[in-house]
């Protein structure tokens, strides 16, 4: 599944919730399976690769949700310089 950006919700956390369970469900599942395979011996970043994919998908999906550039500035002030 690819990020579609069709789901519009207002609250940032709600948006994250929607994308974590629907848009990026595939990546989420891959990450979950990785943890499941190692859950008796979990260390920091043990499933970094899988999470990076999941995180990228989430970031992309949440980013597409912001239509107006002004919203981008408000929500990601650390990215200000790029624009």
């Amino acid at each position: 599944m690819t990020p579609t950006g069709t789901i519009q919700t207002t609250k940032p956390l709600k948006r994250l919730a929607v994308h974590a369970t629907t848009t990026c469900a595939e990546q989420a599942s891959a990450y979950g399976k990785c943890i499941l395979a190692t859950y008796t011996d979990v260390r920091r970043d043990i499933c970094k690769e899988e999470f990076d994919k999941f995180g990228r998908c989430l970031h992309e999906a949440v980013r597409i949700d912001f239509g107006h550039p002004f919203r981008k500035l408000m929500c990601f002030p650390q990215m200000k310089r790029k624009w």
Partner: protein
Amino acid sequence: MNVITSRSLTKAHLFRTQTRGYATISSSGPSPSLTTHTLGPFQVFDRETKRKQRDRAAYKNGGASSRTVDYVRDEIADRMMERLEDIKRKFSTIVDLGSCSGHFAKLLDPSTTRKCIMIDSSHGALHRDPDSEFEVEVERIHADEENLLQVINPNTQEAIVSCLSLHWVNDLPGILIQIKEALQPDGLFLGAMFGGETLFELRTALQLAEVDREGGISPHVSPMTDTRDVSNLLGRAGFTLLTVDIDEVKVSYPSMWELMDDLRDMGESNAVLGRRHIIHRDTLAAASAIYKELHGTEDGTIPATFQVIFMIGWKPAPTQPKPLERGSGKTNLKDVL
């Protein structure tokens, strides 16, 4: 269970001769009169935060959000009512300690009791539902559940019940002793509280996510009491004729996010002293993925377990049945078996 801040550890390290308390709270803690060195071992929860969370939940959307998530409390109240119905006795008054919005009180009918006194520390929850929803007369007392004896005189009550409130009480042995004191001889205590298995799925998912993403864990789900401990505590508080049993309610949710939303609307958000006030969104997303893979069911939902410990105890009275004295048996068991 004890919360030890790094500050107190440093202090103890610097002044080795000083005695250190079992547990400490942050300077903004709920009991300003208690200093670092006098605080007892029973400080686990931030009661003031808990009161605010429950008020906020009860007032949200004019009480509509809170009513939507009544399902757990209503179910447990119903099961607790079954246990009260087994007791063939009529009460003129029943005290409901930590009544919330009266989930248990609503099930009482005039054939069991005439009046119910609801005590709760959250004003919002206590006054959420109007008197017309109750079949019996209700009196609402806005007071801290931890200090029962400040609002109820000793040796006055026929029955005290508590439905899903004791899991936020810091001093559990203390409150049980207060309940016993407030009861008349041969008075009944009937309680339900969340047990240690409650929300274990959420607990494990968050822990695994935190370890993988951030490399450490922090309490997000409260420490809860074990069944074994409850019978010991009841016995220690001086109750007799104890009955303790456990029950489970499993609820299915679409995902971890709905579960957390509902917990917040129930006023059951985290209120452990020394908790972290934020969870990183990466950790949350990771926990949601882990929850689903680790505990999810085939139909795509996730289960959440609520384990409930039901307890019944009686204040001792000379009229109660007692076991015979040791060695007074006349029949040999060998002959019977």
